[in-house]
């Protein structure tokens, strides 16, 4: 297992239309006048400034993939058939987390308390999309670095709470990514605080090579990614 790495203050490009979609905007039917659109765009821009994206990731070897579980190096097991299917061709994985930070959480709360619900709602949707865009950014970054070494990072990622990967696995990722060191907390019901935080797993495919350990340890310890 490699060391945990961290990027702070990332400005990940995001798609504004995804925020609109999240808010229920329908391209074919929703009317929005110029002033309202300007207002919402301004709120999105403000939210972007308040979001302070921090990304944490760690590469980990996959020891074995069975039909209903995945065993990572260090004997860490995730019981999930869907995750096993997702990682069946992978020999490594990247564990990752993105948080939009405490400031946007506080601002959303403060807006709600002062009765500015529309603004709070737009901030909330923007922060969700921007936090997710952080993981897109991280995957694009890692994909490019891995490509130079002949490895392929999967296009998709898998998060706890989806399919049969129960949400409690978020606490395993939390520990593996040492998120407590970076000011992220986890509740007894496995929710992350700041609330606009997300964790995920993506597989890395690599060509067969003589460096691979028999027991499935890390493939590429000196690669430096």
């Amino acid at each position, binding site marked *: 297992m490699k060391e945990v790495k961290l*990027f*702070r*203050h990332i*400005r990940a*490009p995001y798609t504004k239309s995804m925020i*609109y979609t999240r*808010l*229920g*905007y*329908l391209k074919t*039917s*929703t*009317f*929005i*006048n*110029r002033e*309202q659109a300007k207002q919402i765009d301004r709120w999105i821009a403000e939210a972007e*400034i308040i979001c302070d994206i921090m990304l944490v990731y760690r590469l980990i070897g996959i020891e074995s993939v069975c039909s209903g579980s995945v065993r990572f190096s260090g004997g860490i097991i995730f019981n999930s058939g869907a995750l096993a299917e997702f990682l069946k*061709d992978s020999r490594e994985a990247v564990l990752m987390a993105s948080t939009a930070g405490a400031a946007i959480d506080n601002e*959303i709360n403060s807006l*709600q308390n002062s*009765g*500015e*619900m*529309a603004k*709070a*709602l*737009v901030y909330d949707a923007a922060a969700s999309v921007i936090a997710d865009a952080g993981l897109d*950014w991280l995957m*694009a*970054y890692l994909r*490019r670095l891995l*490509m*130079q*070494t*002949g*490895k*392929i990072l999967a296009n998709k990622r898998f998060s706890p*709470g989806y399919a049969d990967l*129960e*949400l*409690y696995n978020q606490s395993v990722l939390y520990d593996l990514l040492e998120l407590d060191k970076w000011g992220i907390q986890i*509740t*007894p*019901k*496995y*929710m992350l605080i700041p609330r606009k935080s997300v964790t995920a797993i993506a597989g890395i*495919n*690599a*060509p*067969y*090579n003589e*460096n691979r350990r028999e027991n499935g340890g890390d*493939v*590429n*310890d*000196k*690669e*430096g*990614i």
Partner: protein
Amino acid sequence: MIKKEFREWALEQIRVLDGATGTQLQKAGMPVGVCPEIWVLQNPEVIIKIQKEYIESGSDIIYTCTFGGNGLKLKEAGVEDVYSVNRELAALSKKAAGSRAFVAGDIAPTGQLMEPFGVYTFEDIVDVYKEQVKGLLDGGVDLFVIETMMDIQEARAALLAVKETCDLPVMASMTFERGGHTINGTDPLTALVTLQSLGADVVGCNCSTGPEQMLEIIKKLKPFAKVPLIAKPNAGMPKLVNGVTVFDMGDDEFAGFVEPFIEAGVNLIGGCCGTSPAYIKKISKIAKGRKGKGIADKGGVLVLSSSRKTVAIGKELPICVIGERINPTGKKKLRDELRKGSMDLVTEYAMDQVDEGAKILDVNAGVSDIDEAAVLTEITKTLSTMVQTPLCLDSSSPKALEQALRIYPGRALINSISGEKVKLDKILPVAAKYGAAFILLPLDDNGVPETAEERIEIVKKVYEIAKEYGYTKDDILVDGMLMTVASNQKSSLEALKVIKWCDQEFNANTVIGLSNISFGLPERTWINAAFLAMAASCGLTSAIMNPGVDVLMNVKRASDALTLKDKNCIAYIKTYSVNNNGKPAGKLKNPVYNAVVDGNREDVVSCIKVALKEGTPPAELVDNYLIPAITYVGELYQKGKYFLPQLIQSAEAMKSAMAFLRPYLETGSAVPRKGKIILATVKGDIHDIGKNIVGLILKNYGFEVFDLGKDVPCDVIINKAKEVNADIIALSALMTTTMEEMRIMAGYVKNENLPFKIMVGGAAVDQNFAVEIGADAYAADAYTAVKEAERLTDYYSDTQ
């Protein structure tokens, strides 16, 4: 080879580059996971063989095997002697090339991010690259190539490292994602503008996704490229087949793109990941000896860039607005903020001006008692990440300008360089080093000339000197030198003459500091607006002005339309057309009603005051306008004509209206109470915005809502429901781990035979779950919650 010779050589005919090195090394036996640079030094015959094969296949330039040869990468592989590794690897490539090909010292990403994203400063990264450059230089490389760059700022650092170490030519090549941007959002044109102005001799792209998408990028770049263009795509995208990485495009298919690349304007072509000497051979067969396209003559357009956006200024383009407000002169609050080191107001002014239509932001940090260089640099850093708009650095301090330009991740505009000796001696070289465009101010050490003719002479003189630094007319904005008409009324006409001369004879773009003209006069806006229109008719191409003044922006847009810069008046129509206001049909013509439908919280109270003054009874306002308005909004929302923010804005307007009217309303004439609802996010769940929205909307539709907040235990909810004799308990949960609390609550209410209906909602919940736990209703959204609550309360009333 000197830079000029290299550029001519690159333009003379299509030049062929090499293909992939990494995949070739792996084919030759290099294990995955080792440090390629060290492995190659241990197996030098392998790289020599590969590079000879490339040269025999037609490569005119081969890249040294130093992709990971920078100090930060080598350190991770446990290598300390960066200089020697690079020198020896360069020497190996020289040995392979002999006199048959040029050797480019390969510089690539460090794999680290610099401030504010990572721990390294810009200067750290420049120093890391300089160390590598020195090794490659002493190993005998003929030129440098900066390749596969994902971050424009890292590419700039590498380019400066080469420029500050030697005079050899340098090629710079970025890699773009599937959407056509780098991972940090830099588009290809912005990368081109930034890198060519900073001194790259060739610019282009490599790696990325494959030739098809890269071809489209080259097509877009060519009209703006002042340097030869490079394309070095992957052989498609990699896939893992039977444990082996393969690229999905064969050499024949790959070679099929060579002709379109030449047609699009590529001057140097090769291959990246997945290509081999076989690919290069096929490229050479088609491209060798062919004459490529020269530099496109896109004269008359000045381009500036930030890290994410390019802005063009030109005769045929709408007048470019340069926002003037980030200037502490006459702004005490901004001065105080800058003294405290706060960037809050700067950010606010920047966002406001961008919203109002500024395409470039002028930034000035000229405050007494502060370190101008430090503050200007801080503003530049802040705005570089906050807004996409390019910056105009407004300072007369060479030190401040150099510091800010060094870290600015784009091509900035300098305000300004005049004929004064100190400006020519100190600022012009700094501007040239960083490739900044500049505003040419027609004054000199004798002061501001009175006449246009004298000003024109200064413009010519400064331009001649700037040419020696490589500047062209497309790199400057001539200032009309606007002075206040309060002290010299002829000043306006002289400025217009300068603008007209630039437009019709000198062929350079122009700018004015608009507000200068009215200084000392009352009602300055009229003077400013009138002059803007006059200057537009003389060919003005940009103006430093306040985009927050509607009159000025209206005159600008009208002038653009009347001077044919706004083709077919499209922008004008888009801005001012009343048919494009997006309002759904069917609205009543009552201002109170309209304010709620439009979600106009600010105006609704003033509209009500007017209505009350005109004699409309308060209850009539509620019954005839407010309730119909919020009902209509609900219908629009249900039909998808409004989306959630609009529904909530209307609800907020309604809430303001009711709060204002409450004291005026007689008992019984307010919105009828439809029932009492206990609202809570269940125990263990910390998400509450959805629940809060439901609460707001329910209140607007006449329900009495008792919002208990989030993470609320079951007994607290039950006790409150009993206390207020509630009709409905409405529960929200976002997560699968917390929605089970709803089951407990529903079971408890049923088992205890309590007279409360249960309504559930939230991201994790659906209709099936609601049925499964025995809830009385499921609300997918806030408006459905209203409808379901109405249904439940009617049912409840009926059964009493």
